[in-house]
């Protein structure tokens, strides 16, 4: 097991390196540079040139790349071009907010999605099924930022139960949850919809398997057949899919972060893109890639735990 984990982590390194290299060169090909973004519209050419010199943007690309790699192996992601602060510090400062949002969105989504999908499968082609499928289709198609605004209008403005601007003091757990609830609710819609459909189709497929027929033939009660046999087996592909979806959820958090004005990686990446903050962009892409690799690894491990047929060498 440990060997499996280590091997996977070791394989992740060349993957991350490849991603970083591609990103490094691609973002510098895009026109526009951080100097104009920082100095503003009326900057003179000479001021722009001076700033570019100072930021090391005029050095040969390969040299910049090698400098970056050298810093990377020491755990130094460089300094943000915009703020002058270390990239790693800035990322770590907002990371808890994004992790909170991602984990909470997935948890809420799964909490609603799995029972809903189960219900839809069991009541196939009956009212409960139709309604569940319709709601989940709405959830997939509904723009999340619009939902976010609706939630704010209802729960923050009308009812006053939750704040509009949701940051929250990281040190105070109650305050943190209080500020997390609405954004997580908004983020969970897509997850719930997705998980519902995945669960439904997986359970239906499971119910059609031979072992279920055998269980029924043995005279086991309906709920035992459903829950202990069909459902447990159906969960395996669902868990896989949730794990893969985790990476996307982190990315989708951008709109939620903007509407709720929550600090987070999503907002940081949009800012860095428009400002052409190369160092920050690179750091963020590495962070994202790292989490996706991690999510895949955890999914694989969970899969192995759930399915006894899978043996790790």
């Amino acid at each position, binding site marked *: 097991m440990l060997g499996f984990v280590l091997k996977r982590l070791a394989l992740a390194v060349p993957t991350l390196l490849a991603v970083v290299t591609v990103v490094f060169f691609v973002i510098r090909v895009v*026109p526009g540079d951080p100097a104009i973004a920082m100095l503003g*519209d*009326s900057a003179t050419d000479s001021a722009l040139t001076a700033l570019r010199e100072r930021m090391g943007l005029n050095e040969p690309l390969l040299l910049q790349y090698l400098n970056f790699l050298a810093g990377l192996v020491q755990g130094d992601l460089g300094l943000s071009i915009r703020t002058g602060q270390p990239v790693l510090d800035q990322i770590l400062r907002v990371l808890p907010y994004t992790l909170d949002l991602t984990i909470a969105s997935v948890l809420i989504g799964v909490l609603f999605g799995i029972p809903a999908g189960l219900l839809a499968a069991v009541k196939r082609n009956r009212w409960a099924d139709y309604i569940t499928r319709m709601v989940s289709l709405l959830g997939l198609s509904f723009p999340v930022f619009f939902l976010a605004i609706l939630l704010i209008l209802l729960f923050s403005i009308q009812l006053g139960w939750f704040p509009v601007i949701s940051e929250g003091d990281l040190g105070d757990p109650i305050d943190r949850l209080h500020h997390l609830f609405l954004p997580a609710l908004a983020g969970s819609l897509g997850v719930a919809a997705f998980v519902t459909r995945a669960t439904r189709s997986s359970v239906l497929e499971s119910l059609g398997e031979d072992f279920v027929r055998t269980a029924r033939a043995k005279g086991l009660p309906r709920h035992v057949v459903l829950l202990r046999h069909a459902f447990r087996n159906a969960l395996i592909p669902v868990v896989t899919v949730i794990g893969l979806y985790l990476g996307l959820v982190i990315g989708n958090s951008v709109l939620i972060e903007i509407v709720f004005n929550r600090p987070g990686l999503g907002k940081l990446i949009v800012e860095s893109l428009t400002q052409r903050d190369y160092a920050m962009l690179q750091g963020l892409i590495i962070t994202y890639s790292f989490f996706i690799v991690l999510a895949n690894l955890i999914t694989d491990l969970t899969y192995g735990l759930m399915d006894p047929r899978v043996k790790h060498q």
Partner: protein
Amino acid sequence: MRLAHSLAGGVVAAAALLGSTLLTPNAAFAQDVLRVGAFGADANRLDPHFSGTGADVYLFSMIFNGLTRFAPGSMDPATLEPDLAESWESSEDGLTWTFHLREGVQFHGGYGELTADDVVYSLTRAADPERSAYASQLAAMESVTALDDYTVEIQLSSPVPLLIGLVANARQGLIISQAAAEELGDQNYHERPIGTGPFEFVEYQPQQYVTLRAFEDHFRGTPEIEEVQYRYIASDNTRELAFRGDEIDLFYGRREQDWVERMSEVPEAEIDIFEPAQSRLLHINASMPPLDDIRVRQAIQHAINRDEFLALIGADITRPLYTVVPIGYAGHADDVRSPEYDPDRARELLAEAGFPDGLTLNVMISQIASLNVPMILIQEQLRRVGITLDLQELDHAAWHAAIRRNESALVIYGAAAFPIADDILTPFFHSSSIVQTPTGQTNFSHCSVADAVIDEARQERDEEARDALYREAQVLIMEEACAVPIFELMQVYVRRSNLDLGYTLEGDINLGPPILPTTTFVE
């Protein structure tokens, strides 16, 4: 059954958690804390000589002072009055200026009294292209020296239209503490910006807010407002919702007519519409044929219908602009008017120039709404006279790069600059500023017809004579059809009606309502 039990248990736990969060009250509304909603996702960099973003510039106005200041609520250069300097005089030739500082002005954070050394340090730093984004503004400053603890002498290499404006309470004129800068390291000044203003810096939470606290020893008196929470809110919607949800008291509004109308109906909201107006000029790139033919450029002048812009963007927040120097700027000539809207004349001119069937131009435009929307209307107005615009939309930074590489036939541009004519004429219409040259700035039209007049005006000390020269420059530029002035877009801020600013807001150089020591919440 086990699953059902655990599900039930989960629901109960969730309900309990939800219940506990509901019991936590929203932040109680405190009448001595001013919560501001600024436009932006984050601070750019909290260094007053470096960052030019609207959100940062407004914040700096609460933390720093200059040698002089505009009277609160005004952007008229005629109102420039003492700030850190009590008085000043200049030599006959206007090249030597002596400023006498107020005594007893304290810096925040225990960094002691303001002396001439701090002024010398600040202006030197602001004039250094390695450390400041505004170095070009102080290019004419040859030296700045401390004659004694409270006297500063500025030596210019050539006369400047309005020196006391350059050292006002904005951008390059902001005075920082030398001791603090040397202690923190000049490049790290942004970690703890120390100034002399009514509010001192407490903390900065990235992507969230900056907290300022009333500075008790401020030379104009302890502020009524005890704390300022300056929040960064990128989304227009969220800013508005936060105001309605009683989470902020003052915010950067939307420059849209129906939004302004809607907000004026909200009882607790007070709308402030003020200068600086961002001018929108359409620069015609005369280096790209057929725009090198003056008749084609004149046709464009005649094709523009300003009334449609006012109707589109909103009568309350725009004003028409007829000359390239914006309204309210020193040197603005009211009687210089760009040729009237006359589509027939436009078609005539095009036919004369050899384009009876019209022509096509390649134009690039930014994605930002305030530039994008007017350009689409321009496209339509030009189409009516037979000029087709091939519009290429780019993201803002890419567009900036493209127009500076001289790639667009037309450039819609505007900045809210310092309110004197030279600040528009030199960067946009003097040949030294033509793009893709070493001294290039933003002369997209390659205009050079008014060079001599602009140079002469810069040297002219008599105000009336100077205004006459600026008027001449505007006439020449208009006759050469370098650019078509279209409209101006005002600033919009919304505040709670019980926030009494303490003055009438007509304009502010720092793009937001100044928060004075006397600004307070009333019942």
